[in-house]
């Protein structure tokens, strides 16, 4: 048994890990499964007892075919974002193919390199926990594999050299050490290297310069809440069943109830379309909105509610209790319309009365299993809304002047002409009720239109081609008619705004999964949703969801499985992975640095205080007065010097023991000059080899450095007398010997330049 005994198997493990990581990242399980089976089978087909390897020419032909096929795929659909995925797939295929060839250590290095390319390419597309675990496992295996490959390279080179020797008699074969010791020491070294590399990598990970607010945004998409609606990305949104939080909905008596309709929990409100960046943003230009923003502080008790506006929670208010599970966000998810808030931690919340948005002032800190409660009025009247919002009332007419994308209004007029032509007539501006009623009816018509059979819901937009010169909302309305909830909500909001109806896009979660046992809703990342609010009164807004609730429920029902019962285990780790690793950005880095600095400063202050108090106490005990501090300083210096001296002596004695082997302490103490002697030889450029005796070395030295040899000879004699002759040195002799050794060092240094 030697470290190379299982080398081929280790290489197959390496390839399989790379294939698994790539498959998980790119969701190509069929390809990964087939290639992994092939990789495992290669052990029997090419390296088994009757194994046959693939001829080099055949492997080259197949490799060229794979490369050509990949190139054709790329040329057919030259998407830059797909390039690395193709490269990764090519690397996976080539690495698997290579396992069937007759390989040298150099070929194995290429296989490892191909695996690394595949995993690095996959890292651009995924940030899942499972992928992260596979990357870590792959990294550990790669380190071990590289080390094994070095051994294999050395062994192959030595064996090839040996085989090339031509002699008239047989050449002894190359021997490889066997036994447990080499294997165990290799394993231990590999483990230590891996741990050290992981530790250092983590340090680099923490201190690496970051983009503030990145939060893994450039990674692959997956379902989940985002406080923005960004259209224009034609990729597939991965379903995520991660549990985000739970919601308990209680009636005014405190009894938990299940809401008859899907529960819409508002997170962010966006009312302005940016045609350049192709995203919905919150309109920041309205100064009144900023001025009216309020801050609300909770006292850390989950029972003590703090009012968001001037309205005290009426007895008819419902209670919404949210327990965060895995989402780290500053947003508070609330049902329309929140009246007051309580939290189990002391926090400062920001309340926007115009949109009823609530956010935590500490960015990204609301999470980590904290709980907050809200008093909510599901159907507030006008006065109650006024009390919550406070401030000045908005004008009793729509503020929207239209939608900034040409073509949307024409489409809206076409729809209205087709379904409700009377709504094309403008309402009497002097009669607000007519205006608001018209807004409501227009929104109803558009909602029905978007829920019609012409539009389809999908999370896979890879087949959709969005032209750069065309607005994605207009493209959705006129051409593709295919998209997810953000497209539906954007289209409804755009149609409404184009007809001068106040509308805004709301993102948040829709709770549909009710746990009857625990009496609460379970909200998952896949429940992230976008819908529309249309202004239907001077201060009231009404929700319109153009996405069919049937579609949402159908999607939810299709994803349920027995594994969801145990999903919380995975979710715990997934939460840590996402919050600590994936979401680690410049903000978190700065926070971490501040905390570390604060901790260090606190510790330093505590240490300083302790030293000062101790000094005070000692000084008082001995009643030394002000001069006592000087004495304490002197004692401290003496102790430090003593410690350094002891350390130096012990270290020097250990070095002597290393050089001359086991010897009595007396010899170690008296033969200290021998170290200087050896140092002088080294300094002169003639280090003494360990196999040569000091006397023989001095004799050899006589030819090259007679002066040094002349000076060293008495010291060598003295060393022999101490080491082997049992001579005891008096302190005077010892000092003289040490002085001579120091002089020897000077001689060695002085004549160094003259040595040829």
């Amino acid at each position, binding site marked *: 048994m*030697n*470290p*190379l005994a299982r080398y081929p198997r280790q290489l197959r493990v390496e390839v399989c890990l790379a294939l698994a990581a790539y498959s998980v990242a790119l969701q190509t399980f069929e390809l990964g499964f087939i290639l992994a089976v092939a990789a495992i089978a290669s052990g029997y087909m090419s390296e088994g007892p009757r194994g046959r390897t693939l001829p080099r020419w055949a492997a080259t032909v197949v490799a060229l075919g794979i490369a050509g096929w990949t190139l054709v795929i790329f040329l057919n659909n030259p998407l830059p974002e797909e390039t690395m995925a193709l490269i990764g797939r090519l690397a996976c295929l080539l690495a698997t193919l290579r396992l069937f060839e007759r390989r040298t250590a150099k070929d194995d*290095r290429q296989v490892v390199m191909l695996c690394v390319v595949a*995993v*690095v390419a996959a*890292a*651009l597309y995924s940030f899942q926990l499972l*992928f992260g675990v596979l*990357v870590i496992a792959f*990294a550990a295996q790669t*380190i071990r594999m*590289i*080390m094994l490959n*070095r*051994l294999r*390279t*050395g*062994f192959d*080179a*030595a064996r090839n*050299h040996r085989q*090339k*020797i*031509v*002699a008239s*008699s*047989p050449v*002894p074969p190359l021997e490889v*050490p066997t036994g447990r*010791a*080499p294997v165990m*020491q*290799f394993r231990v*070294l590999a483990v230590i*290297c891996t741990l*050290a*590399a992981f*530790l*250092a*990598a*983590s340090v*680099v*990970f923490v201190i*690496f*310069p970051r*983009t503030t607010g*990145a939060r*893994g*945004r*450039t*990674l692959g998409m997956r379902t989940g809440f985002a406080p923005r609606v960004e259209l224009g990305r034609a990729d597939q949104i991965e379903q995520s069943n991660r549990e985000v939080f739970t919601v308990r909905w209680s009636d005014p008596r405190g009894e938990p109830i299940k809401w008859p309709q899907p529960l819409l929990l508002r997170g962010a409100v966006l009312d302005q379309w940016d045609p350049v960046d192709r995203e919905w943003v919150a309109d920041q230009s309205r100064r009144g909105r900023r001025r009216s923003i309020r801050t609300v502080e909770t006292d850390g008790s989950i029972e003590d509610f703090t009012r968001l506006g001037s309205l005290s929670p009426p007895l008819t208010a419902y209670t919404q209790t949210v327990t965060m599970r895995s989402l780290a966000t500053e947003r508070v998810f609330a049902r329309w319309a929140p009246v007051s808030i309580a939290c189990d931690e002391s926090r400062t919340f920001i309340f926007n009365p115009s949109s009823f948005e609530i956010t935590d002032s500490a960015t990204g800190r609301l999470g980590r299993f904290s709980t907050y409660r809200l008093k909510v009025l599901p159907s507030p009247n006008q006065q109650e809304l006024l009390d919550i919002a406070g401030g000045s009332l908005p004008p009793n007419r729509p503020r929207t002047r239209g939608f900034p994308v040409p073509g949307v209004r024409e489409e809206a007029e076409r729809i209205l002409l087709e379904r409700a032509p009377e709504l094309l007539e403008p309402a009497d501006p002097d009669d607000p009720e007519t205006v608001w009623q018209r807004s409501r009816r227009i929104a109803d018509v558009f909602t029905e239109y978007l829920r019609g059979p012409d539009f389809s819901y999908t999370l896979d937009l890879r087949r959709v081609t969005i032209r750069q010169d065309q607005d994605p909302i207009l493209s959705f309305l006129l051409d593709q008619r295919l998209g997810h909830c953000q497209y539906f909500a954007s289209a409804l909001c755009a149609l409404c705004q184009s007809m001068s109806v106040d509308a805004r896009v709301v993102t948040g979660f829709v709770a549909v999964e009710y746990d009857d046992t625990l009496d609460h809703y379970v909200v998952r990342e896949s429940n992230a949703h976008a819908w529309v609010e249309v202004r239907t009164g001077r201060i009231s807004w009404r929700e319109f969801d153009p996405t069919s609730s049937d579609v949402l429920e159908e999607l939810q029902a299709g994803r349920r499985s027995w594994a969801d019962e145990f999903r919380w285990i995975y979710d715990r780790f997934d939460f840590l992975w996402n919050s600590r*690793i*994936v979401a*680690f*950005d410049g903000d978190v880095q700065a926070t971490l640095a501040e905390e570390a600095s604060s901790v260090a400063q606190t510790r330093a202050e505590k240490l300083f205080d302790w030293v000062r108090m101790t000094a005070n106490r000692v000084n008082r005990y001995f009643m030394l007065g002000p001069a006592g501090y000087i004495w304490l300083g002197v004692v401290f210096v003496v102790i430090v010097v003593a410690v350094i001296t002891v350390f130096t002596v012990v270290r020097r004695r250990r070095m002597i023991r290393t050089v001359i082997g086991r010897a009595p302490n007396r010899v170690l103490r008296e033969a200290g000059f021998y170290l200087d002697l050896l140092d002088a030889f080294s300094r002169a450029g003639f*280090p003494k*080899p*360990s*196999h040569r005796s000091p006397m023989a070395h001095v004799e050899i030295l006589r030819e090259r450095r007679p002066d040094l040899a002349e000076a060293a000879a008495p010291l060598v004699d003295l060393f022999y007398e101490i080491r082997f002759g049992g001579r005891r040195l008096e302190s005077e002799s010892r000092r003289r010997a040490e002085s001579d050794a120091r002089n020897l060092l000077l001689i060695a240094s002085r004549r160094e330049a003259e040595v040829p």
Partner: protein
Amino acid sequence: MRYRYQVNLAGVLYLVITLLVGLAATIRPNNILVWVFGLLLALIAISGYVSGAALFRMSARRVDPGHGRVGRPLTVRYAVRSGSRRVPLFDLSVSEIEGGSSSDWSRFSRPDPAWVMHVGPNEVTHAESVLVPNRRGRMRMDRFAASTSFPFGLLGKRVIVSQPLETLVHPRTIPLSTEAIDRLFTGGGDGDRSGRSAGSVGEYAGLREYRSGDSIRSIAWKRSHSATVPIVIQRATPSPRRMQIMLDLRRATGELRLPEGIDGRAREEDAITLAASIAETVILAGGEVGLQVAGSDIPDVRAQSGRRHLDRLLTTLAGIELDAPRSSDQVSIPALRSGVLVVVHVDRVDPSLGHDSAVHLMPASIETLRMDRDDRRGETAPAIDETLDTTGAVA
């Protein structure tokens, strides 16, 4: 010891990949890429530390290989000691450094580097390097280098150890046909001498009076009864065949009378090879061989048998310095009764060197004496009568 670093191609590629991954991690804030980048950086540091901790505390020395022989593998061993108390040493390659001040590597084939897979902490392991000497003579090795690029092959580390060592390379020996060697003994060389050992072992040789020191068991009691003094039985063991080889190197290389185009030095080496081959064959067959080098101040070697004596003979032949000045002084011819005399000449036969029954050989004779494949299978060797006359000169 001198320490050296060298950058491998693999290390350069690794650095390029690391930079690319770092660039990707900078441009695209992907945290997994950042971690991978950190890992790649960490491996560079760990590689330097691990190999440095093990290699730079290592000590190595070359073990004297004794002597080699031309054309035969010579195993040179290196005792490698890992000085580190904790870190083992892996994948260590030890190779001789050519082009040293005193070494002459044209004499040898390219040395095979010694490779050792593992040296445990504070352990000594022997690494073996095999080289095949091409020429006879003194072999000088000056420095050797111990190198490794373990654990990751990014950076090669090298320790150069200076340890001058001289060893002898014996001349090439060629297996000769025993029958052809038998022919060389035609003129005598055995049967007329008794062994030096006395005692009750051996064949009956005669009777004599008792002398002090004779074993009491050798007394012939019946004959002693009628004699006035004790009579003992004289016994003798048959003497092994004895050969005295005289190598004629009286003429300097430049003065050899050779046809145009023939390298004189090569002929001299061939002559030495012939002498060595005859000596080896005779000694391995149980004979005694002595050596005399005419024209050189190398002392004569008395005829003896045994492998140790063979080594002595080969060492003498290996020590012949062909560049040294030759002397053409009178050569003492060994006595006829001391065995058969074989004179090996370089260029031409000189019958004055040796008595009448001496056998004179030229380097070309080796082809005639050589054991061919058939002979090695036990078949009859070709007769050499046609190629040798009474003076032994090649026809």
